[in-house]
Structure formats: C-alpha cells, structure tokens
C-alpha cells in the first residue's frame, strides 16, 4: 500500500495563517463589541451596553433597511446586465473572446477609487451625461451625490463578480437541449425563457447572492459617491471606527452585520435546497 500524506498536515500551514489573520481578528472584534466606551476612551468589560444602545436606535434600523435595499437593487441590476455578457462569453467563438473575458473582469482588479473618479466625470451635474441631456434641452439630472449615484456605482462594482459566478454556472447549460427546442420550432425568445433561464437558475441565484453580499459590505462607493447623504452599515462602521473613534460601536455594528449576512446566506441556502428538491 502506498504511503499517504495526511491531508490535515497539508492543510496546516494555510490553516495556521488563516487562524492568525482571520480567526484571531474576528475574535478580537467580538471581544471589543462588549467593551464600554465613553467619548472614545475604552473600558474593558463584558457589557451589553453598546448592543443595547444600537438596538434602541431607530437610525440603525433605517440604515439596515437602506443597506439591504441598496444591495438587493444593485445585485438584481448587476445580474440582469451580467447575464447576457456571461452568455455571450460562454457561447462566442470570436477570436476576441479572451480579450473580452479580460475586459469583463478587469474592473475587479482596478482600485475602487479609480472607478469613482471616472463616474464623477460622467455623472456629475457638469458631467458628460448632463451635458448631452442639456444639449437636448433636458434639465440637469442629479446622478451623483445621492442614492442614484451610489446605485449606479455599486451595480458596476459588483458586476464582474456576477459575471464570474454566472460563467462558472453556465457550464451546466446543455446546448443540445437548446438546439432541440429550436429544432422543435421554438423561437429564440421562447427557447431563452423556457430553456436557457430555467437551466441556469442556480447560477443566477448564486451570482445574485454573491453580488448582494458584496453590495452590503461595499464601502468606497457609498462613501465617495453618496454626497454625505448615503448611510449604509459599512459607512457607519467606518465612521465609528475612524471618525468618531467609537470602537465598541464599530465592533458591535460589525458583529450585527455579520449575523445579518449569515442569516441571509443561510436563508438563501435553505431556499435553494428546497427549490432543488
């Protein structure tokens, strides 16, 4: 019998690193959320004061709903826009396929700040879109420094992830079924709605969840494109951590956001399983 390398030993180095840079920080965060803070000074304690303060605050509830709504909207838009792209990349035989695939995930690798600068040139009151609209006599539309701007920017920033998740899932798409439907006389649109979409539903749902989770945690886009109007859980955490220096509140909000996300992911998993069964 050949000698087997114990798998757990192979995992040890990575597990050690992840323990150091992931588990330990998460435990620190959890611990910090029970500290007491007074005007920025930290008092080590096991207190629920911070959580109580947040729970009683209607603003936290509003911010939560706004964050979830924003993420849901952007995830939906991102999947809608990404789906034809993924389908195109999956099917095309073009020599440019490689280049186009790179272009689709390129934004993923570009700093969020850089993209925001581009959006500013395009969406501001004096930006290209409003200049064009102005040329046709349309009054200036507020497209940035509000929720609209954040929705646009965030949709774009989660799109590459949606494309990747969709492409990975499209592998299940059996082209022969589509071809069969077409040969039986189904029009392209019918084939698309009755065959393609149902067969790729798991991919769509996975891509939506990924985009949603990333949308909830996005921070740079709301911060730079929201005009100080857009408060999300992520910007609240950053402000508490870096501006008002209320670390217990930042930690407690983080724990709360994590719980919320876990619940949503679990609910999604349960729904998917039921739909699959």
């Amino acid at each position: 019998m050949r000698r087997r390398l114990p798998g757990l030993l192979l995992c040890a180095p990575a597990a050690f690193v992840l323990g150091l840079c992931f588990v330990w920080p998460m435990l620190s965060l959890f611990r910090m959320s029970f500290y007491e803070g007074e005007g920025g000074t930290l008092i080590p304690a096991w207190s629920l004061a911070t959580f109580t303060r947040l729970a009683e605050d209607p603003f936290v509830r509003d911010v939560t709903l706004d964050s979830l709504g924003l993420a849901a909207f952007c995830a939906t838009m991102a999947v809608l826009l990404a789906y034809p792209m993924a389908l195109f990349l999956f099917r095309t035989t073009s020599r440019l396929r490689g280049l186009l695939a790179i272009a689709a995930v390129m934004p993923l690798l570009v700093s969020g700040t850089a993209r925001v600068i581009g959006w500013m040139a395009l969406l501001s009151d004096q930006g290209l879109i409003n200049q064009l609209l102005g040329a046709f006599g349309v009054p200036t539309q507020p497209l940035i420094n509000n929720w609209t701007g954040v929705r646009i920017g965030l949709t774009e920033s989660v799109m590459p992830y949606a494309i990747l998740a969709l492409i990975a899932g499209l592998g299940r798409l059996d082209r022969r079924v589509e071809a069969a439907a077409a040969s039986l006389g189904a029009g392209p649109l019918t084939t698309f709605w009755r065959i393609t979409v149902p067969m790729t539903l798991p991919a769509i749902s996975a891509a939506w969840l990924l985009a949603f989770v990333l949308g909830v945690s996005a921070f740079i886009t709301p911060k730079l494109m929201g005009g100080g109007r857009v408060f999300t859980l992520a910007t609240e955490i950053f402000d508490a951590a870096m501006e008002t220096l209320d670390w217990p509140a930042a930690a407690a909000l983080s724990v709360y956001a994590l719980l919320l996300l876990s619940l949503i992911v679990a609910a999604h998993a349960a729904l998917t399983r039921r739909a699959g069964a």
Partner: protein
Amino acid sequence: MRTGPFVTALAAIGYAFLLAPLIFVIAVSFNADAFLRFPPSGWSLRWYAAILENDGILEAMRNSAILATLVTVLALLTGLPMAWAIARGRTPAWMLNVATAPLLLPTLVIGLGLLLALTPFRLVATWPGLVLGHLVIVLPFVVRIMTTALLALPVHLESAAAAMGAPPLTVFMRVTLPLAAPGTLASAALAFLLSFDETVISLFLVGPRLTTLPVELFRYTQSRTDPLVAALSVALIAVTLLVVLAVERLVGFTKTMGRS
C-alpha cells in the same frame, strides 16, 4: 449554437456600462487643467510626469510591489498544499468552505478586526501586519482557484507515478506541479493583483512607517484636487492589464477563469 444578435446587443450594453468609468478615468488623466473637470480645456501628459516627481507615491508604489510579491509567494506556499489535499479528497470537503469563508465577509469588518488584533502587538503599519492583512483575502482566493485547477488535472498520472514507487513529494514536484503550472501562474498573477490593488483592509493597517499605493490613491482623492489621481489610476490599470495580458499569452488565463 451561435450567439444571436439579441444577446450580443445586450452584452454590448453591459460592457459599455461596465467599462464606462475606466474609459473616463483614462480621458480625465490627460487633462491639462489644474483641477479635475470634464471635458478638459486641453490635453497633456503633465500629470503623468507629476507622478514620477512625487516621492511619496513612488515609495508607496515600491511598497505595494514588495508587499504583493511577499503575499503571493506566501499564499502559494501555504495554499497549494491545502488545495491539493482538498482536490484529492485527503481532507473533509468542508475544508474548502472554511478556507474560503473570509471571501464572504465584508473586508471592512476584517480590516477593523485586524486593526484591533494587531494593535496590542504593535504590528500596525509593519510588514508582517500588512502581509497578514492581505493574506486573509489572497490565500482563500488561491486555495479556491487552485482546487478547481487541480480537480481538472488527470489523476491517473499521479497514481501511475505513485504506483511506480515515487514518494509523494516527488510525485507532487515532478508530476502534479508541472501539470498545474498554468493554473498556478494564473492564480499567482491574480493573487499579486489582488494584493497590489487592495484598499480597504490596508486603510486600517497603514501608518507613517509604511503605506501602500491604493491607500495613497484613496487619500489623494480625499485631499487633492488635481488630475494626478486619474493619471495614477490609469497607471494602475495599465499595470493590471499588462500582467493579465502576459499571463493570457503564456497560459490562456481566460480558460482558467472560465473553469473556476
């Protein structure tokens, strides 16, 4: 089945939306004005020249390059064995979920956790601190991609070598690694870029001693008014594109990506 005109048209809209901000950053970067505005009153390369005269940015650039290299090497060294163990069923399957869990968490939360954890040990704004901070996203990524890449390899070659008496390490070095080289190279490139462009976690972990390029970029946007930011962004995009295209040439990057 060919791509119909309908799908192609919709895909084109998607592309236009997705790439619009990048295209406009490029346009703004050739601005001749002293402040960001569009369209510019004239075109010039002055902001590109300005990058080369800015010591702070050049140092941050150097730091980011060193950091990304260290992180990539460490992530591959630790991630590869784990990916192999997962792909060959040597560990329970949930290991992959555990290892990739950090990818699902908000980076902001991870960054805050790291700040809290590293502060007592005076690791904030140090190389080990930043390396750890970047590994938390790069390592899971490498494990995920490499697991997929290794799963796609023919197992029988490894079994054959083992059956002929080659020790496991030899099998890994002589058979598995050469076969997995394209995937490894692609994931190394992605790991490098992920670390090189990482902003949010770094934001919590930099300091006067040590800062990175994306953080400088973020700070610059918040404090400066000139189009140097745009020029710098374009430089970053160019670096990214070069790396990706080089890998594509060498190993067919997109194939790896399609499969992962």
